[in-house]
């Protein structure tokens, strides 16, 4: 994975005025998974960008950026959870992925914070239309201004050098957004080849969103080469996904999983109950066989290289599809493609034919020890859960685990909480558990938290923002807990599915190790809030109306009625219409009686 990252860094350095590169990295992971990292990168010179002459840079996105005065943009669509325990460290060190749902952060130049926020709203509204996502729901309550968590990747001028305005970083998340094919289609439209040629022709919405984990990212940053040549605006689109090879190989028209046929079952013969009709299945010890066409459901069509210029020769040699398997493993490729093995003995790259399809087949082969050793354990693992019970209060527990036996880990923990979750920071407590003795010890938070930035929430206007600079000692596990209170929303503020719960955005962890940053995100949480019975207002109206009407009726009657003795009332009653009718009825009854008697 660090290899990927260094490759990525080296690619950044190769900046031409207007070019396009794409690259696909395939790495088999344990447990029959496959990590596929697609990377598309193109540049536009700053001048042509400003004059709106777009070549590889997408026009729609460029216009949005100019309209919203956005200098650097990062947009992430993510589904699933990266299983660090079995898959190792994250691709690109976590810099190209977001929390579950949609995450957006951008540097906007504006004279003051209000202008920046207005531009930010413009940006989210426009991107919402462009990407078919609910980005327009990123309002002030979901927007934060992180202080230490994010740093610009591009080269920005000093604010007063050419009269440009200061940059403002704004960050927003939509943890409840479901990323799906309607987000992939606009994503593909931004590419020069639009999924018609090159590695983007492998994208199939069904396979992509069927993956165990997937992340789409769009990054736009201005880059100024060190040699003083013209600045460029770079757009980098990346798609990373972890595919379950078995699952992906199922045919699309018949996706129901079938049991393994008897004769292909691999049984554990050491079990006492093993017999010809009883089997304890063993995991396959061999690497599964797969091919590009099987896993992605499509074949790779040619090369998307609109820039056949001479300066892109370096990239040509590098090859656009790379596979990370040991050199011992046999890989069959389509005729015409050129294979080039790297020196590290763990990867090889392929240069494709400009036209025609490309396929890559890995045969089934005995597993060897090389592959597992390639997996690196993550520097830190983090986990965030909600604790407590009841409708009124709850608690948050964050667990950081440092597996290293020697080095402590310094990092920045960033959390944006919705306003209806009101944390009590005075209840923030830290517990350290050593890996050796496993005894939790309560320690003062100042020992762990070196710095903190806290911006309390304002009801219905902004959420809580919490940034902590933490340090976890080696071989130990730190647990942070704090209590919070759940606010009661107004009647109209509840969504239609109020009983499902409210999403709390994932926390972002920036590992400040050496010069290159690594990011880590926890999973998003679901916060159950007290929900009322939604017919309540009408019930209240009707009940109070009835009470008022009753009270009014009796008072009004007291005031306007005439009071007489009961006998007199009867006499009076005989004179009224009611009394007369009653009298008539009485006489009728008597007459009928008399008749029966005389008979």
């Amino acid at each position, binding site marked *: 994975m660090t290899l990927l990252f260094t490759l990525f860094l080296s690619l950044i350095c190769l900046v031409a005025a207007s070019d396009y590169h794409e690259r696909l990295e395939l790495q088999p992971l344990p447990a029959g998974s496959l990590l596929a990292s697609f990377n598309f990168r193109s540049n536009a010179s700053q001048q042509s960008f400003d*004059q709106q*002459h777009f070549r590889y840079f997408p026009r729609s996105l460029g216009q949005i950026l100019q309209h919203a005065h956005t200098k650097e943009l990062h947009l992430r669509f993510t589904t699933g959870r990266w299983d660090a325990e079995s898959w190792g460290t994250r691709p690109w060190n976590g810099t190209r992925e977001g929390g579950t749902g949609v995450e957006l952060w951008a540097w906007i130049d504006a004279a003051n914070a209000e202008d920046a926020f207005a531009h930010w709203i413009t940006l989210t509204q426009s991107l919402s239309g462009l990407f078919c996502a609910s980005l327009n729901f990123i309002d002030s309550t979901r927007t934060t201004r992180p202080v230490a968590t994010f740093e610009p990747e591009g080269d920005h001028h000093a604010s007063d050098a050419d009269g440009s305005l200061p940059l403002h970083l704004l960050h927003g998340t939509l943890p409840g957004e479901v990323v799906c094919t309607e987000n992939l289609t606009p994503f593909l439209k931004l590419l020069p080849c639009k999924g018609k040629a090159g590695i983007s022709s492998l994208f199939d919405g069904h396979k992509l969103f069927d993956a165990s984990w997937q992340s789409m990212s769009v990054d736009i940053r201005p880059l100024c080469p060190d040699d003083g040549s013209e600045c460029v605006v770079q757009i980098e689109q990346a798609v990373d996904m972890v595919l379950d090879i078995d699952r992906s190989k199922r045919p699309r028209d018949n996706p129901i999983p079938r049991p393994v046929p008897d004769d292909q079952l691999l049984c554990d013969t050491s079990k006492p109950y093993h017999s010809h009709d009883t089997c304890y299945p063993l995991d396959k010890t061999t690497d599964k066989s797969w091919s590009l066409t099987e896993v992605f459901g499509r074949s790779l069509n040619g090369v998307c290289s609109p820039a056949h210029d001479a300066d892109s020769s370096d990239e040509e040699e590098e090859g656009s599809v790379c596979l990370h398997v040991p050199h011992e493993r046999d890989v069959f490729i389509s005729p015409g493609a050129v294979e080039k093995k790297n020196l590290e003995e763990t990867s090889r790259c392929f240069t494709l034919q400009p036209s025609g399809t490309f396929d890559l087949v890995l045969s089934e082969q005995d597993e060897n020890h090389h592959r597992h050793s390639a997996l690196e354990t993550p520097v830190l693992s983090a986990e965030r859960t909600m604790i407590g019970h009841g409708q009124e209060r709850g608690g948050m527990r964050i667990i950081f685990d440092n597996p290293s036996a020697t080095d402590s880990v310094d990092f920045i923990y960033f959390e944006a909480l919705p306003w209806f979750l009101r944390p009590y920071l005075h209840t923030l407590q830290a517990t350290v558990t050593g890996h050796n003795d496993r005894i939790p010890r309560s320690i003062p938070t100042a020992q762990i938290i070196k710095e903190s930035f806290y911006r309390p929430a304002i009801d219905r206007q902004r959420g809580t923002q919490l940034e902590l600079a933490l340090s976890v000692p080696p071989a130990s596990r730190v647990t942070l807990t704090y209590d919070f209170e759940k606010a009661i929303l107004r009647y109209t503020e509840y969504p239609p599915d109020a009983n499902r719960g409210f999403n709390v955005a994932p926390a972002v962890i920036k590992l400040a190790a050496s010069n290159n940053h690594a990011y880590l995100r926890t999973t998003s949480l679901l916060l159950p809030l007290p929900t009322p019975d939604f017919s309540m207002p009408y019930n209240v109206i009707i009940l109070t*109306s009835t009470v008022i009407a009753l009270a009014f*009726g009796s008072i009004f009657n007291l*005031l306007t009625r*005439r009071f007489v003795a009961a006998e007199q009332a009867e006499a009076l009653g005989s004179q009224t219409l009611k009394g007369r009718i009653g009298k008539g009825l*009485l006489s009728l009854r008597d007459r009928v009686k008399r008749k029966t008697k*005389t008979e």
Partner: protein
Amino acid sequence: MAISEIVQDPSLLPILQTSAETLAQCQQLLALLDPATAPGSSPEVQEVSLAVSRQQKVLFALLARLRGQNRDATLRVRETKQATAEARQEIDRLHLQLQNLYYEQRHLNGEITACESYDHKYLSLPLIPIEEFLAIHPEHRESSDHDLMVARINHEHAEREKLEQARQELLKRKQALIAENKKRKDDLANLDQDLERFIDVSLSRDPLLCTIANGEYQAAKPIQKIFEKEYYNVPAMTGRNGELASSQTSSPAADDVTTTMSSTKASAQRLPPPEKAEAVRTRTGVIAAFWLVIILFGFPIWWKTTSIYRARLPIQEMIDWADGKRLTVYFYVVQACRPVFPLDIHVETPSLPPSEAQHLIRTTQHALDDLNEFSAHHLRLKLAEGSRGEEPYIDGESETGVEEKADTTLVVKLLPEDNLAGPRSELHADTSQLDVFYPPSQVPTFSSSNSPLSSFIAEELQKLFAEEKTTISHIISSSSSSPSPELAEDIGRRLRRTLKYADTYHLAFSLFTPGAEPSSWDIEGAVQEYLTPLLEAFSPISNFSVDTQVQIHAAFAPTAPLPTFDETQAAWTLKKEDLSAFINAAEWPLSPSIGAGPTINFILYVPSPSQAPLVIQGSHQATSWIVPQWGGVVLLNPPLALSDPSPRNPKHLSRESLRPAFLTFSHQLLTLLGTPTTPASLPFRLQTLMRVRAATLLLSASSTMGSLARLTESLPSIPIPATVAASVSTTLAHLSSACSHLREGRFAAALAAARVAEGEAERSFFEKSMVGQVYFPDEHKIAVYLPLLGPIGVPLLVALIKEIKRVVASRRS
């Protein structure tokens, strides 16, 4: 045990004997043949063999006998078996017979016991004991049991018949008694009722009678008599009970007396005293107070809180603008508007003396007025002031003085030229100047009212403005008859193509190609060279922003008809009717640009080498078309680079190769913006466009005002915020100022005013808060109010009605 002990049958004894002999013989033989005693010498051998053979013969004989005896024995055994079987059969038969007899005997025994133990009915007859019977009939003492029984039964029968008869008699007596009893009871009940009635009557009538009644209650008979007497005397007593006179006389029938009596009982109670006037007044006051609070406080508060804010709009004025009344009744309404276009045409006559020039202008004006049949469009000829100074009149200078002066539409320069048969005119392509060359002889003299020169000038001018006139008349009233229907049709089509007027237009130039090449074009240079001059010329009317993109791998829509190869033209052709499906709107990124103002799309399509050259079907080999109100498309077939294995498009499109496409684009832009096609001079066409645009905006703003007025009148529930009212007043003010500018010939100012009016009109019409949904619909209001208003309203209303009735009644009395 020896065999002789077992076999003792005499018939078998010979066999045993024979077999014993045989055995002895055999043993004898064996002894002879014993090898131990075998003789060694031959005579002995011979002797032995002789003995042996002798012995052998004996043995054979014995054996034969034995066999015969054996056979005999066997036959005898068979015989014996046969005899035994027969005997046994006989025994079986006899045994069976015996068994049958046994059964028969048992059955008969059973029957006998059953008969003996049979229980007859007569044994259990309920008769009197035999001793009593004999005591009664001693004569039977001697008779047999059977006779005794018969006699007893007969006796019993006789006794029973006697008793039954007695019972029947008793029953009859009982029934008679019951009937008697009942009759008596009825009598008693009747007596009771009569007595009650009597007591009632006597009590109400006379205390004396009452006491009598009470006292002699037990003596039923006499009281009944008294009662009968009183009963019929009732009418005679009426005089005494005065209050009841009416009711009693009205019911003379005897049966009615009871009812009258009950009513008498009720009215015996006293009526309450009449209400005091004070109490009545208090009650009236209370009811009035409640109603006053409701009317004075309740209704206004309810009205205030539930009504929506509707700012006052000058509805009538707005509708007048829309209906064009302000246009037609111009002469009667002072501030009304009518889009007139007085066009100032300056005539420069550097070579003529002023007086002659004046005369020439007058005659030309006459000729023009005769030719012109469209009153709104008025050409006014003026002698240029600068003509005296012999300096050319520059169009730009008149623009500076736009505040005071009317714009100059056209400068006509009269230039004398010798050796010309007739006058000829020449329009400058880059300025709005018309040079008229004329032979000096044709200058009209003062005497002539008409001259060839003036009529020529008038005709020329008329021709120049013909299209503009038709366009404007088409805009103002589409139904007006125009001189040539073809021209009107043409103009109508052009107006339909034209984009709506806007301050800013975004021009989006896109290069589409189905393959990977060409992927770059020299767009910056092309725009700079071919387009920027045009856009600058347009700057007084609209602003433009330009953006461009390159889109490779842009395929046709799957439903779009594919081009076909035409042999005769040696080209791939697209059918004219299929052009509408050419643009793949679903996949090609042609989204409108961000920002106010419409986007005009220009598409440059480079077909793939396999489909090149691509043209539109038809004879002209056309490669471009306009999509009305949207943009234009140009098919560019660049020269293919002949490389093996297949020809390829060039990677880069140079500025030179883009030239024809961009010339087409600029022409399409002019068309889409509504610029007239004639005449050739661009500044002149732009000025025409300005006037057309001003008229269009004026009308569009007016009609928007009318729509707004109708909308607010037809939907009484939508709110009208104050901003809308402000916008409306701004619009109306700008409309009238635009009108006055038009009247005075200041078209640029009129356009500016009309722009503002249009913008404000659109803003007021599309005000967000006006189209907002009604949050609390009427059904909800009723559902919420009814539980409160129903129970409160009903007592209030009833009280009010009662009070009004009482007041009315008191008035009447």
